[in-house]
């Protein structure tokens, strides 16, 4: 799944520059750090609902920007459900029905497993540099880390969020907080990162909280248990046949 590297690496870039670079440079830096050939990520998603919380465990194999394969491990009901993303296409497989179904159109807007994220949010794989014009608008200290505040404005019309504001760690080049806005300037979603740690030689966000601010509730927590970079992933994993295996 592309979205996991997006989140993890977007939020956890590494770097040595301590002086004030340009906003584009910072974005480039964040984007560059995503350029691992492949990643294998184990994670848990904690979804808070009105009736209590649920934890969904999954493991993802990702190659480049276009290919990803995710398998859900827990709870029992979700175990064995798999998703395959190749470019703009998304397929899902459920063992109970033994069917592979393409998720398209309207379905992409649905939330993933009841979380505050939609399939579309997951599918977003264009780099920030490509999509947004960036300006540094200030700096702030978050969780004892010095951050630049960068404002991003959409370069073209086809983006889900017209504007974003990101707080980037000046030293590690990872994003510690992100606000997403509509054209009208209305805040729509927030992302908060904590528990940044070194894994496999990179700074990785350990805990990310997504929140749809229009909605009541505590949002969705995303916990990264482990990340491995640049491992060999067998090519057959990124085929529909692998879904049924």
């Amino acid at each position, binding site marked *: 799944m592309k979205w996991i590297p997006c989140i993890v690496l977007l939020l956890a870039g590494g770097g040595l520059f301590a002086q004030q670079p340009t906003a584009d440079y910072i974005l480039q830096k964040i984007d560059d750090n995503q350029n691992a050939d492949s990643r294998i990520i184990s994670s848990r998603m904690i*979804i808070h*609902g*009105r*009736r209590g919380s*649920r934890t*969904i465990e999954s493991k993802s194999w990702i190659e480049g920007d276009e290919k990803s394969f995710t398998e859900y491990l827990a709870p029992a*009901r*979700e175990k064995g*459900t798999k998703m395959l993303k190749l470019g703009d296409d998304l397929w*899902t497989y*459920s063992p*109970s*029905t*033994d*069917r*592979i*179904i*393409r998720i398209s159109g*309207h*379905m992409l807007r*649905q*939330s*993933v*497993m*009841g*979380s505050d994220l939609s399939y579309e949010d997951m599918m977003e794989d264009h780099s920030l540099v490509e999509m947004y014009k960036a300006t540094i608008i200030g700096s702030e200290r978050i969780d004892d880390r010095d951050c630049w505040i960068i404002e991003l404005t959409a370069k073209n019309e086809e983006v889900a969020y017209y504007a974003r504001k990101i707080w980037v760690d000046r030293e590690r080049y990872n994003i510690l907080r992100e606000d997403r806005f509509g054209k009208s300037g209305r805040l729509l979603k927030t992302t908060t990162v904590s528990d940044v740690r070194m894994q496999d030689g990179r700074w990785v966000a350990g805990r990310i909280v997504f929140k749809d601010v229009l909605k009541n509730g505590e949002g969705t927590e995303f916990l990264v248990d482990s990340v491995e970079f640049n491992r060999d992933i067998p090519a057959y994993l990124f085929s529909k046949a692998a879904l049924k295996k």
Partner: protein
Amino acid sequence: MIRFLFKGLIRDRSRSFFPILTVTAGVMLTVVFHAWLGGVLSDIVRTSATFTTGHVKVMSRSYAEEQAQVPNDLALLGVGQLMSDLEEAFPDMIWTSRITFGGLLDIPDSTGETRSQGPVMGMGISLLDASKGDVDRMGIREAVTAGSIPAHPGEILISDELAGKLKVEPGEQATFIGSTMYGSITFYNFVIAGTVHFGIMAMDRGAIIADIEDVRTALNMEDGAGEILGYFKSGVYDDKAARAVVNRFQDIYGSAGGDFDPVMATLREQEGLEQYLAMAENMSGVLVTMFIVAMSLVLWNAGLIGGLRRYGEIGVRLAIGESKSHVYRTMMLESLLIGLIGSCIGIGIGLAISFYLQTHGINFGAFTRGSSMMISNYIYARVLPETYYIGLIPGLFSTLLGAGLAGIGIYKRQTAQLFKELEV
């Protein structure tokens, strides 16, 4: 004397058979009319009870507040226990649970890839458990246009229009894709057992009916239900009884409580039915009164005619020395006997027909285009408490009144004149 009169009645067919037949027919008509009118006026109520409100309905407090959104994440849980509690506390009601849900229906081709797909709204009802009566209540059997009613778990009915759109036929497989009550994506394989015509465009465009147990499994709602509907076993809504059920329910479960505690409402309290019910009751009163008056007039008329026909006989009886008052009394007694026998038979037959019409209704589908259709094609009678005795008014009183008025002639006329009418 009654025995004497009775014998006379039996031996003279024109004095017994035909008058009794008239009274029976009249009383029967009155009874059926009463029940039928009750049914016609409460038709909307019946439809709403069947599809949405039940006679009483149990939901979780928060589900009830946002009912329009069909929020399955707020559905009742622990329904098995709740249902058995309800069944124990209210043994004269039928309790059935329902889940309304939405999603996609995906038809696979021979390789298992998507062949066609469309959005659907679904209703999980007690399709397989006949004791809940959902299939009969909703008239599903008659609405089936192809295939048959599901007989096994995992089978569904889909609207015939949807079947056409998806190019799928009974017997084929379909995968439902939706979200569980917790929001996870869920897949469930169904076999399409048949197609139905609902008669409501929104439903005909894309509705499916599945067994509630399948829906529970599909939506991860084990032991859950969006709504529990309660029906009186008579099939007829009785507001007083429903109120009593709600009061007892509140005594057991308390009226305050948390977001997911069950709350109960009567049909009358739901969806603005109150005003309509009140109006229907008034109107029914007016119409029934009119009908009874009319029926009484007819039977009175018949009694009158019966009396008049016998002026000749009366003339003879007076001539041989019977007193006028005695003749009059015997005539009254006779008509009382006739009225009683006729009323009893008439009420019996009338009730039998009414009960039949109450359970089975009459399918007017043949008269409307698109023949079989689930909603509003059926009209049912409705037997009310008054239906049991309403027939006595025309049957007994009117017959007596008729005979009484006809008998007045006995006093008015001279014996000679009455005797003359006998002249043949």
